[in-house]
């Protein structure tokens, strides 16, 4: 990667092997109902939930100080939401236990909460989704997760003295939405600044935004083809502790498409023009020499220069000296 992106992660960590700092795992689950219907027959939310619970329990069992947070991204009824921890812990009524009573207490507490909250979320979904607008997005949920990570890793240690590392796992099934580009990028850069790596578990279509997210933050991006092995993926490739990252070879792809897309024609381009005011990218010089996004007027002389086509200058005939007489 480039110099800027690398700097945050290349600082050498000492005593990596003895490091026992607990870590926080924030999981963002894409719950876009419209996208889940597209995956019908491949995987359902229930199966995903099962695998995620295994992952969370595994994370909690590694270190007694480890913590988890689970968020849902979007639904027709409510926007990004925390499944665990629950802010309204005091008011919630005890439901019938869905889990076996033999389970480890810490696991039980987390698992039950997540299942219940997810059930409430699904119960509140309207039955006929027409005319309903989807609320929330992955970027919103990631912003929330980052604020929560910021509280636990930067603000609370000031008073308690307990340090915590953090990583984020995004389980996404939906396609990229260009509207979300700016908030998404802001999330990626703040994660990079906070040294939070973003791992991505992707099902369905490939996502270039999430690929960039994991690339910039030194995370792992996995497009999962075989959903039956989901547990395996989650507990191996996507389960590398932040303290182990510097010494592991990450299973990620390094051939990444960084090409930008044109704001006007939406074509992916190699060489383009950038407005110096709003940094929009164009594949063609915009009409009337006015930026379509920020309405800035471009300098005519500069545009004229850019419009110039390369000219092939005709080869000049070699001047020959024949019998002392110069021929032209």
């Amino acid at each position, binding site marked *: 990667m*480039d*110099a*800027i*992106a690398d*700097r945050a992660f290349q600082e050498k960590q000492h005593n990596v092997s003895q490091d026992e700092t607990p870590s926080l795992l924030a999981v963002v689950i894409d719950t876009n109902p419209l996208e889940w219907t597209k995956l019908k027959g491949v995987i359902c939310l229930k199966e995903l939930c099962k695998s995620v619970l295994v992952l969370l329990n595994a994370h909690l069992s590694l270190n007694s100080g480890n913590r988890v947070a689970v968020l849902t991204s979007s639904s027709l009824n409510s*926007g990004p939401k*925390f499944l665990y921890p629950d*802010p*309204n812990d005091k008011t919630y009524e005890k439901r019938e236990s869905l889990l076996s009573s033999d389970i480890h207490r810490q696991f039980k507490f987390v698992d039950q909460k997540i299942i219940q909250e997810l059930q409430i979320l699904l119960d509140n979904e309207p039955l006929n989704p027409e005319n309903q607008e989807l609320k*929330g*997005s992955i*970027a*919103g*949920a990631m*912003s*929330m997760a*980052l*604020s*929560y990570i*910021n*509280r636990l890793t930067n*603000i609370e240690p000031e008073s308690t003295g307990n340090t915590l590392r953090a990583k984020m796992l995004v389980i996404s099934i939906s396609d990229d939405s260009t*509207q*979300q*580009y*700016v*908030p998404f*990028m*802001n*999330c*990626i850069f*703040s994660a990079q*600044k*906070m040294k939070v790596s973003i791992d991505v578990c992707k099902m369905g279509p490939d996502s270039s935004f999430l690929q960039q997210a994991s690339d*910039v933050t030194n995370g792992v991006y996995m497009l999962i083809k075989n959903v039956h092995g989901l547990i395996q993926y989650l507990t191996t490739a996507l389960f590398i502790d932040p303290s182990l990252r510097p010494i592991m070879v990450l299973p990620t792809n*390094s*051939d990444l498409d*960084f090409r*930008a897309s044109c704001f006007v024609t939406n074509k992916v*381009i*190699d*060489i*383009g*023009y*950038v*407005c*110096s*005011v*709003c*940094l929009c*990218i*164009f594949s063609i010089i915009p009409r009337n*020499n006015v930026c379509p996004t*920020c309405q*800035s*007027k*471009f*300098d005519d002389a*500069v545009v004229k220069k*850019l419009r110039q086509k390369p000219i092939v200058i005709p080869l000049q005939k070699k001047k020959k000296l024949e019998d002392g007489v110069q021929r032209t």
Partner: protein
Amino acid sequence: MNDSDDDYLEVDEGIEENDLSFDKKGVARRTRKENQKQKTTANIALKGSNGGYSWEDEYHRSWDIVQEDEAGSLEGIVTGIMEAHKKRFLKNVTPFQRGIIRSMVLVIDFSKVMSEKDLRPNRAALTISNAIEFVNNFFDQNPISQLGIVLMRNGIATLVSEVSGNPNNHVEALRSIRRLEPTGDPSLQNAFEMARGLLLHTPSHSTREILMIFGALFTSDPGDIHTTIDSLVKEKIRVKIIGLTAQVAICKEICRRTNYGDDTLYAVILNEGHFKDLLLDAVTPLAISKSAQVEMRGFTLIKAGFPTRISEAIPSFCACHSKLIHGGYICPGCKSKVCMLPTVCPCCNLMLILSTHLARSYHHLFPLKLFQEVPLAESYISTNCFSCLTEFPQGMSESERSNSDNRAKKEFHTSSRYQCPDCNKHFCVDCDVFVHDVLHNCPGCGC
């Protein structure tokens, strides 16, 4: 030192400010001035709480400001400090047209005065460590910009690192000058002339800026500095100066003339924290002023290439440094390999950037709206911060609030809730600071 401050100018206009050699005479003038006008011409802003100059005030120790409340808790004062920190962000958020692509020369005073120990451990050491931080911040927020560093030492200007877009080189160069001893006099003119030379070749779409950290109160110049100022104005180079000692009239004039009559870019530090804040301000791109826009014929369009990254099993040479490296980026114009971005293709002169570099600057262009403090009420719609789940203090009635137990506690004088004007969600002060300082997204709006 010479007295080239504001008060002095008001009495004796027409005398050259960079006239150094009349120390004795200067003292005499100052006395005369005091007789004539007493303190009537003194700047009101300099007045302290007792009506005199602020330096005549009683000295407040930092540990005297912190006082325990009746219950012996420091919580009240801590919230107060947090709120004060938050105030820093209550700045202008109206979107401006800004010069996002910048070329800047950082000029650092390294003359004898920089070895003074009024800043810990001394001025030079603190300046260098702040400058390193500044370089990192600058490239973090302005990835497609260029920076160069110049040192003022022994009456001449010394080039520390060439104008380039690679933060590592600058940080290395700054680390290497840590070993140097600050000596000699500073020369504003020499420094500006060198900076001018460095900025001469910057393309028209880029801003030209000089950021100077100036510790001395004088300058020893080989010629007339006003001609240098004239050429700076002509070449549209904008100068920001951070003074470490006191205000110097010539610095103020330079800032005023190079910034279209706006002298707010000249500031003198109050303490170490303020020094950092002033440097941090310089990280944000300058807004393009109205008068500058009128002069311009229009904005420029930049041709840029978005290269693809390759990974190789066998290393090959890069076109930029001629080093053997694994992988790199392929210029879409001429298919040569470069090892680091952003850069200008050494082969075909095409500007090579990644779309992520552009995205880093977007938050300057679309700033997040400020959150408003929720007024005190008996009950609130929220119990927890929307994004980090911190519990808010509960609302209470007027009678409860005036209860003697609660009156002293500061937390009952604010609602501790901050509301996003778009999504109306409530946030705690920590999240408010984080969201505006780092994230630049409102988690509630979700987009």
